[in-house]
């Protein structure tokens, strides 16, 4: 069961919904992206950002108002759902309640008039693949949530679709199962090498399974890239905030020389890669990830390679392997994460502390 991957191209697609008594609302606004053969691309964003609508347009459940969609070389914009050759996994699984597991999985094959013997073989093969052999005669209401999810996946992949589409497939599962299932989905997708679009609002999930992530906001793609690229170099405050936790601290450019610039921060300065359009005097935001900040005693002096600021611990959350603090610094709150508290100890709420940041850990965010 191998499928040579198919390329998906979404080209300037827009979709507006009109509600009664309201003006039209652009759910998807001029979105373009390409998913390479065999790639798993995740559409990530808060609810209402247009990720599900985009996915549903790829599936054919919704019709774009503008733009084209291509699966492989085929323009499928005008094609009915049932002719697109996709597999879709729904948030609530959407298993046919009146059919058994076998009949559910066999449904797509029967609709395609696959001969009976092949149906039996392929269904048991795919049930084996999702780890549900022997479940053929059960009904959906006799299955646990995780089992239903596996049946839904089996049903989608058994037809060997050109494209696999997931709409928040894990959001109805409990936290532990979610982590387990996402690993399985990832393994399965790699094994089958089916081009996949995956929608979720959970950044951990997205980072765990995606080849690339497209972060969406208000109907547009805010940034697209691998998990690492998005984390290290967010191009907007939104992406920075959405991928991991972040402290945005304002700084002023002191000097620009040879592709580097010096930015004033907390009475000291840091040197970062120059941003186009920045001149001495420009104000910009610096990204300081919580894990690159360190709490030090109040009396510590700033070193040569880091900057230091004094503040008061306002809250503390103990999570076992790490401790999360918020520290009030000049009216603003800084998130700080420290690891290995067993060895390094914890600081009490109310304590005066110093916060240091390695000059190399700061990154500029172009204020646009």
């Amino acid at each position, binding site marked *: 069961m191998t499928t040579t991957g198919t390329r998906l191209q979404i080209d300037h697609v827009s979709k507006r*919904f*009109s509600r009664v008594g309201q003006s039209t609302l652009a759910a998807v606004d001029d979105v373009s992206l390409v998913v390479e053969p065999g790639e798993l691309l995740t559409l990530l964003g808060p609810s209402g950002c247009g990720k599900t609508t985009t996915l549903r347009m790829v*599936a*054919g*459940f919704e*019709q774009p*108002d503008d733009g084209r969609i291509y699966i492989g070389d085929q323009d499928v914009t*005008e094609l*009915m*759902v*049932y*002719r*697109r*050759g*996709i*597999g*879709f996994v*729904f*948030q*609530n699984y*959407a*298993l*046919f*309640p*009146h059919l058994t597991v076998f009949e559910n999985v066999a*449904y*797509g094959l029967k*609709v*395609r008039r696959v001969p009976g013997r092949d149906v039996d073989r392929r269904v048991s093969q795919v049930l084996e693949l999702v780890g549900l052999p022997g479940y053929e005669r059960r009904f959906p209401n006799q299955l646990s949530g995780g089992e239903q999810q596996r049946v839904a996946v089996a*049903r*989608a992949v058994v*037809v060997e679709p050109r494209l696999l*589409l997931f709409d928040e497939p894990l959001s109805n599962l409990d936290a532990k199962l979610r982590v387990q299932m996402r690993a399985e989905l990832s393994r399965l997708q790699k094994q089958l090498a089916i081009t996949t679009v995956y929608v979720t609002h959970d950044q951990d999930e997205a980072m765990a399974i995606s080849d690339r992530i497209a972060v969406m906001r208000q109907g547009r793609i805010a940034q697209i890239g691998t998990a690492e690229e998005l984390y290290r170099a967010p191009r907007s405050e939104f992406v920075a905030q959405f991928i991991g936790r972040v402290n945005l601290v304002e700084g002023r450019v002191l000097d620009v020389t040879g592709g580097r610039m010096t930015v004033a921060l907390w009475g000291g300065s840091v040197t970062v890669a120059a941003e186009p359009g920045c001149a001495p005097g420009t104000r910009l935001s610096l990204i300081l990830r919580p894990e690159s900040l360190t709490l030090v005693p109040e009396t510590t002096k700033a070193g040569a390679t880091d900057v230091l600021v004094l503040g008061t611990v306002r809250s503390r959350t103990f999570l076992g392997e790490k401790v999360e603090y918020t520290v009030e610094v000049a009216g603003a709150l800084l998130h700080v994460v420290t690891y290995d508290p067993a060895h390094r100890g914890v600081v009490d709420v109310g304590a005066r502390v110093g916060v240091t940041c390695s000059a190399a850990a700061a990154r500029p965010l172009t204020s646009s």
Partner: protein
Amino acid sequence: MRRPLRDPVLLPAVLLVWAAVALFVLYPLVRLLILTFWNEGPSLDAVTGLVRDWTNRSALINSLALAVLVGGAGTALGFAFALLTVRANLPGWARRAIDAVVLLPLISPPFTAAIALIFALGPRGLISYHVFGLTKVNIYGLWGTLLSETLTYFPVAYLTLKAVIANIDPNLEDSAFSLGARRWRVFRTVTLPLATPGVANAFLLVSAASLADFATPLILAGTKFPVLPTQAFLQITGLYDMRGGAALCFLLLVPALAIFIGQRQWIERRGGSFVTVTGKVGATTRVKSLSPAAVVALGLVCGLVVTLVLICYLLIAAASLVRGLGADNTLSFAHYAHVFSGGLKAVRDTLIIAVLCMPIGGLFAVVLGFLVARTQFPGRRALEFAAMMNYALPGTIVGIAYLLAFNDPPLALTGTAFILVVCYVFRYSLAGTRATTAVLAQIDPAIEEASASLGARRDVTFRRVVLPLVRPALLAGMTVLFIRAMTAISATIFLVSLDWSLVTVRILEGITNLELGQASAFSMLVIALVYLAVAVASFAMRRLNAGSLGQAGTLLGG
């Protein structure tokens, strides 16, 4: 939303349903409108004479007043029954007995209740004279009509409200109790407000039924209390004035449609929640909202009504079993012998037509319900509205319109069974359509999308996924069609033919020809058959795990 019609199956399906509705609903109405308001040019001459007639003017007011009164009385009575059966912790057999008796007026042929009431409460009636010795009883007029229609239509309110009250979680009442409220206060501040939408819906349903009823006033209203449907009937059959009669019906159409649209909006705003599955409640908490005194009071009222209904129908049963009720009270099976000899053709015809209606109407209802609830196409609202026109119109007018529209080639359907089937299908599929919409509202559209994503065309999805899932609605729709085909008369009185007669028409004949014994025997047979159908349907419903839809009877009113 701009969604082009590009589905290769949806388009033909929509066109087919539109064509059917246009042909069997709109076209006959247009023919009738032309007949009424076209006399070598647009003309109101059919109406002018009518407006001068005092009976017609008071008939309009009477009809509206009667509808409001029957709506109020029927809803109150239905509410009392619903409270008693749902909230009074009655034993199961008592609830089943009440349900069985209450169903009687709803499923019996028209006229039956009115005639039985004369037997029971009329001058020299069993209760009025032989029990209470009253000699100056006047059952004819407003009060008799009101009583008879209330008894006939309160079950609609009862079945609607029963579901509503059963869906009110007793835990809500419990929480009010826990806050220190007393019973009456809990009832007033929690139970009643929660039931209000259901009460309003029941009121509209009962009022609409009263507004369209011509059989009861024909027998009981007398000349002092003319009402519109009866006036229209009299105009056509007594004064040989079809145009005038049609004009009167169009007058009736305005309030009928208003009620209908109001009721529909009501349901829509609440998302059809009176059939929503809310999960099992009540098992954990014993209902305490009714004080023992209230239970006794409700029991008395309902007991009285149940007794009255029972007496009425026992009288019908008695009339069918003696030579001539009141004249020769010796036991005789002569009337049944007649039913099963001379009347057998009518029984057979009715059964054939009723059985034919079921699959055709059931399928039509489900397809229409599906199209309306699940698809987008231009004119969807208009289609929905057009499809329910025949339901909202008085039967007499539908019958005449059909006769006008389908008498000539190429659509010469009069005289065939087909015209009767079509008439029932397009008049009484509404219950099935609504049940379908209600069931679909509980089914995630993703299930259909899943089917499409797996490569199934819309028709395949409909056949393999939707149809099996809406089976309870299909069953309910078919049951209602069967019951209506067995008991309805107003439209079909003009459509029965030399080859196809109906039991209800024979009952009417029996009543007008003084063959009360025969009419009663036919009625008993119809009641028995319908009970059988309802029992089979209820059994099948339970098998389909469709408890939420309740009895098929729940849908009779809608």
